[in-house]
């Protein structure tokens, strides 16, 4: 068993058992579902920003499209749970197909600004198109039946959590495979030196477009599940503040790491929940945390731990010069 698979089994096992300890710490299971869905959204940012180096500052657009895709299909087409998730996921993909060709034309900060601007377009559509979307009030709905034949019930909070967990672990598995594939290595190379990648005969636009589509689809899936978790879709899920939260979660946990988004989402969602019961000024604490993170450990929590381990390994290798210790790796 590889170390990566062992880590996955341990974390997956802990998450599967999490509902057992929640009553002890007075947390509701739905908040852990929210952690997983925010981790999924942060992973969609991670693929673009953490791996490929593209400032994905507008991924809430895809997340919100997923939310509205699910909500609108439930409200107007009376679809089941599974279909609503599929519609929301497809809405994210379609969003990527529409925005991708424009975003592709820019790099660096201009990519980020363009992503924010496009996201705001969707935000204002949802905000203004009151007759369909409910505008500022959003749209609520009852969680529909699952969608299997002869299953006449909707998911309760506990079963919803396990569905969210299965989806989250599925995306982790996808990332684990893609990250070490030639495609994933090419994305990392694009982050480091796009010109060189092109001079190795690779059409980087094509890679970035596919990364965008994967990212927007994952964000759409996360957004659809989020709407179904809270039985509600609202314009702020499309807003650039929401995009900023996803970026913050990713950076907090560790850019370019598999588990960083989960660590970041746990701190973000649960921290927000706890602090907001004490003071309405929870955003101050969040801001302070972000500043501390960027200044103190810019590689994020998991990135810093990995760097610390690598340094220790390096010291060990230096004291035993014959040892064939592999050198530290910045990106794996």
């Amino acid at each position, binding site marked *: 068993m590889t170390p990566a698979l062992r880590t996955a089994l341990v974390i997956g096992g802990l998450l599967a058992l999490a509902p057992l300890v929640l009553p002890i710490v007075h947390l509701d299971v739905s908040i852990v579902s929210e952690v997983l869905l925010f981790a999924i959204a942060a992973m969609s940012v991670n693929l673009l920003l953490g791996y490929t180096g593209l400032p994905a500052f507008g991924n809430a657009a895809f997340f919100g499209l997923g939310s509205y895709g699910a909500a609108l299909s439930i409200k107007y087409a009376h679809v089941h749970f599974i279909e609503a998730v599929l519609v929301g996921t497809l809405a994210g993909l379609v969003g990527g197909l529409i925005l991708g060709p424009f975003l592709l034309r820019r790099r660096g900060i201009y990519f980020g600004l363009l992503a924010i601007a496009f996201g705001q377009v969707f935000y204002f559509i949802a905000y203004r198109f009151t007759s369909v979307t409910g505008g500022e009030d959003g749209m609520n709905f009852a969680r529909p039946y699952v969608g299997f034949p002869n299953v006449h019930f909707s998911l309760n909070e506990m079963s919803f959590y396990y569905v969210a967990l299965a989806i989250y672990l599925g995306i982790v598995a996808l990332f684990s495979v893609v990250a070490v594939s030639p495609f994933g290595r090419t994305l990392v*190379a694009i982050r*480091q*030196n796009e010109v060189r990648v*092109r*001079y190795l*005969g690779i059409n980087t636009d094509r890679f970035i477009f596919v990364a965008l589509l994967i990212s927007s689809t994952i964000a759409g899936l996360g957004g659809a599940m989020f709407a179904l978790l809270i039985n509600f879709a609202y314009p702020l899920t499309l807003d650039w503040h929401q995009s900023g939260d996803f970026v913050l979660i990713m950076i907090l946990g560790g850019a370019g790491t598999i588990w960083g988004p989960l660590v970041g989402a746990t701190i973000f969602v649960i921290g927000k929940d706890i602090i907001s019961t004490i003071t309405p000024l929870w955003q101050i604490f969040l801001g302070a945390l972000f500043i501390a993170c960027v200044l103190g450990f810019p590689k994020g929590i998991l990135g810093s731990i990995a760097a610390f381990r690598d340094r220790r390994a390096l010291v060990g290798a230096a004291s035993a010069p014959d040892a064939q210790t592999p*050198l530290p790796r910045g*990106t794996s």
Partner: protein
Amino acid sequence: MVLLEATAIGKRFGGVIAVDDVSASVHEHSIHAVIGPNGAGKTTFFNTLSGFYFPDGGTVHFDGREITRMPNWQRVAAGMGRTFQTPSIFPELTVHENLQLGIWSQAGQAFRLRGGTRAQTQAVEARIDELLGFVNLASSRSRLVAELSHGSQRLCEIAMSLSTSPKIVLLDEPMAGLAEAETERIVGVIRDLRERLGLTVLFVEHNMRVVLSLADRITVMDRGRLLAEGTPNEISANEAVRDAYLGREVVDHV
């Protein structure tokens, strides 16, 4: 046979004419140098050949077809490799990983979302060994490129440019900023590119001694214009070249 032909290339940046009506013919299996004083437009000319920029006027033909406005990544697939004045590498990846990408690219495997089969991986590893053997970097295989010396980074970049199996290699000032011993290593590698791999080399350089001993054809540029083209003997005897650039003592010294 002419492998790479530039005809009447022009390139301006705003009001500055960087390259004005420059032509050059690079013959197959030759080592061809582009020289000129600072600001002569050598690198700009070079960049229009490799597709880093597109020229405003003129045409570029490579291996029998016009490539004037072909995107740079397609030129690589067509058989062109290049290096940069400041080594263009992936600093946070190992030497091994730096070479992997070009091999995947050439084999049409870069787009795979899953790892390769055992046979594919073995073929890639064998090719990496071959490339590292050629530039003599086999001992640095698993080191991060950022940790290598400047000269070794340059050798790594040359190996990267070879990883896509080019017909021609374009080297932008391959000796810039290197110590004497490292310069000798690069000179040896450039010779080997032709002798052992049968490639064509086009390089930009201002170290005159290196150019005269290494190149068999030289294009001289000055202030964006073509000054002369010929063999090392013709160039070192050319009055206009002597006046504009070389300084008599350098040429006489050689």
